[in-house]
Structure formats: C-alpha cells, structure tokens
C-alpha cells in the first residue's frame, strides 16, 4: 500500500502520467462548461422571484464551492506533506493556492454584482461575506509566504502550518448562514436530501460545478508539472525529459 503510494507519488512517474491526462481533462472541462453555460443561460427557465438576474448563480455558486474546496484540498495536501514528507503533496499545495485565490475572487466579484441587483447593496459586513473575504486574505498570505521563502522545503512546511491554522475558517463560511442571521441566503443546493431548486435549473448548475472541478484538476496538473521541472531541473530525468 505504502509502496504503491510512494511509487504513485514519485515525481518522474507523476510528471509523465499527468502529461497524458491533461489533454483529456481539458477536453472534459471544456465540454462540461459549455453544456453548463448553454443549460444555464438558454435552457433554464427564469426564476419566479429574481427573473433573469438569477443566472449569475451558474458562475457564483460553483466558484464559491471551489473557493472552499480548493482550500480544503490545499490544507489536506499540506498536512500529508507535513506528516509524511511527500514531495508531490508539497507541490500540489503550492500550486493550488493561486487557483483557489482566483476562485475566491470570482465568487466575491459575482456575489457582489448579484447583491447589487438583488439586495440593493454591493457589500455588507455580514458573516458569510466577511468570512469569504478572510478566506481570500488567507490565500494571499499563503502565496506571499511562498514567495518570500526561497528554500522550497522550508516554504512548504511553513505554508502547511499556515494552511492548517486557517482551516478553522472553512466551517465558519459554510455554517455562517445558519449560525447568524445573514443577508446571504441559506442553503439551496447543498441541502442534498431536498434541494429547493427545480431540476431544470439544478442540472446546469451541477454541470457547471463539475466543469469547474475538472478545470481545476487540469490547471493544477499543468502548474504542478512546471513546478516539478523547476524543482528538479538538475536531476538526470528532467534533463532527459526536456532534451528528448
């Protein structure tokens, strides 16, 4: 089991395997995103309350989910890098941070755009919105720390500590709408037993979300590959790989 894992996580093997997967992932992501866009913008009916404006949901909700998911992914990778010294995990944590920050920025931007129409304000300091802003700052802090530390191993360990300390924020983001009386609405889709959304709207949303996820996977692999090349640039196998 451990032997299998360490073989899987060996950088040269991972580099080659990822190289084979990436084109497929891009294709799947493009397909899903396209289907989701058509489904959301054209096929889905208007909403009884919000009219057409609700369609921003098809971007907002997936990016908000990804903002949280990527953080959990990063923290998980950090933890395994910290405990088992898996180099691949260090690399994955490092390269996923900017993607997470981008998703968070997208969620913030689409959210406040939507809020300007629906709530009559761009921004309120309610618990959901504030905690997402803090998540954004956490990403920025992680990235600043990575940029400031030259030694990669030290950067990885330091980043792991920071990422794990920040994990407390994630449940707060998720449950804030229940714990406090926020302006932000409560769960619609994530009440999995009984989503309060008609299927015509739900399927494009889920397709988009899946598309975002596959996009993330592809982007992480691309970035991880170049990070691996840079880290191992003096290793024999990299030189072979590049000159081949």
């Amino acid at each position, binding site marked *: 089991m451990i032997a299998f894992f360490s073989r899987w996580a060996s950088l040269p093997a991972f580099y080659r395997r990822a190289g084979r997967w990436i084109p497929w992932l891009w294709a799947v992501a493009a397909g899903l995103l396209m289907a989701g866009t058509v489904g959301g913008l054209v096929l889905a009916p208007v909403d*009884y309350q919000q009219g057409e404006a609700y369609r921003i949901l098809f971007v907002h909700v997936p990016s908000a989910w990804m903002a949280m998911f990527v953080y959990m992914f990063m923290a998980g990778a950090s933890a395994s890098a910290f405990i088992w010294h898996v180099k691949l995990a260090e690399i994955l944590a490092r390269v996923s941070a900017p993607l997470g920050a981008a998703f968070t920025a997208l969620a913030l931007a689409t959210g406040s755009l939507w809020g300007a129409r*629906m709530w009559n304000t761009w921004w309120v300091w309610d*618990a959901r919105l504030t905690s997402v802003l803090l998540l954004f700052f956490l990403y920025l802090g992680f990235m600043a720390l990575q940029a400031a530390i030259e030694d990669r191993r030290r950067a990885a360990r330091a980043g792991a500590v920071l990422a794990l300390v920040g994990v407390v924020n994630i449940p707060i983001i998720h449950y804030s709408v229940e714990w406090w009386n926020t302006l932000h609405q409560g769960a*619609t889709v994530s009440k999995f037993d009984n989503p309060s959304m008609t299927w015509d709207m739900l399927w494009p949303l889920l397709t988009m979300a899946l598309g975002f996820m596959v996009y993330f996977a592809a982007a992480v692999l691309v970035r991880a590959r170049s990070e691996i090349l840079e880290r191992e640039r003096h290793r024999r196998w990299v030189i072979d790989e590049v000159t081949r």
Partner: protein
Amino acid sequence: MKTARKNRLLLILTLVAGVGLAALLVSLAFRENLTFFFTPAQVAAGEVRPGQPFRVGGLVIPGSVERQPDGVTVRFRLTDTRAEVPVQYTGVLPDLFKEGQGIVARGTLDGTGLFVADQVLAKHDENYMPPEVADALKAQGAMPDHEMMRKMQP
C-alpha cells in the same frame, strides 16, 4: 519512553479540553443575539429601546405599502406572522422590493413605535423555480416558507 507516552496523553487531553471548551462557549454565544437582528415579535415585546440602532427582518405585508406625498418616502408594515412593525424609509428601494417579499431594514425606533430605516435590503428565499411552478405550488398551498420565516419561528 514512559515520559513520551505520558506526554502524548497529556497533549491529547489538553487538545480535547481546549477544543471542547471553545465549542461550549460558541454554543452558549449562539443562544443569544449576536447581530442586532430582531424579529417583529421581539420588537413588539419591547426588547429594543427607542434610539438603539438594530436590524429588523420580515415579510412586507401585502397591501401595506403607501407612498408618501413627497414621492421618495415609503411606509409599510413588516411581519413574522406573529407581530407587525410599521417601517418608514426614504430612498431607493431594491428591485426585488414588493409586497410579500422578505426584507431586512436597518434603523431605529422612534418614540411612537415607528421604525425609521436608513437602509432596506431585500432578502429573497432560497427557492429557485420557474414562475409557473411557483404559481402552482401557491395554488396548492404547498409553497415552502421563506427561510427567514422558518428561522424566526421558535
């Protein structure tokens, strides 16, 4: 070796104690009102004094909306189905503002029990469906409650 094991046990105990205490305190905090948010019932029960800024949330009672002669001031009443609060607001209302809509208003009570708002935000419910479905559900009386209403019920 023995000290190592003892240390680990101590560590785990401290962790459990710390996290447990934190959870306890948080749950105590949630029993009380942290966000200056009051329901019309609480306002009616006199939980806020005139002059204290706070937020009140509820549904706009159908038929209660009246424009004042100056053209920019509106008055309406908010309810959580148990009590009502009269609200006055001067300014631009949100697009979604209509009778039966959930809103959150911020402001203060004047001496007569009128809530003078300086901000009115719309708070729609978490249901997404086409208008036809909504009409059908309403006709059957099966429309899910507005989430704010559900949360406000004791």
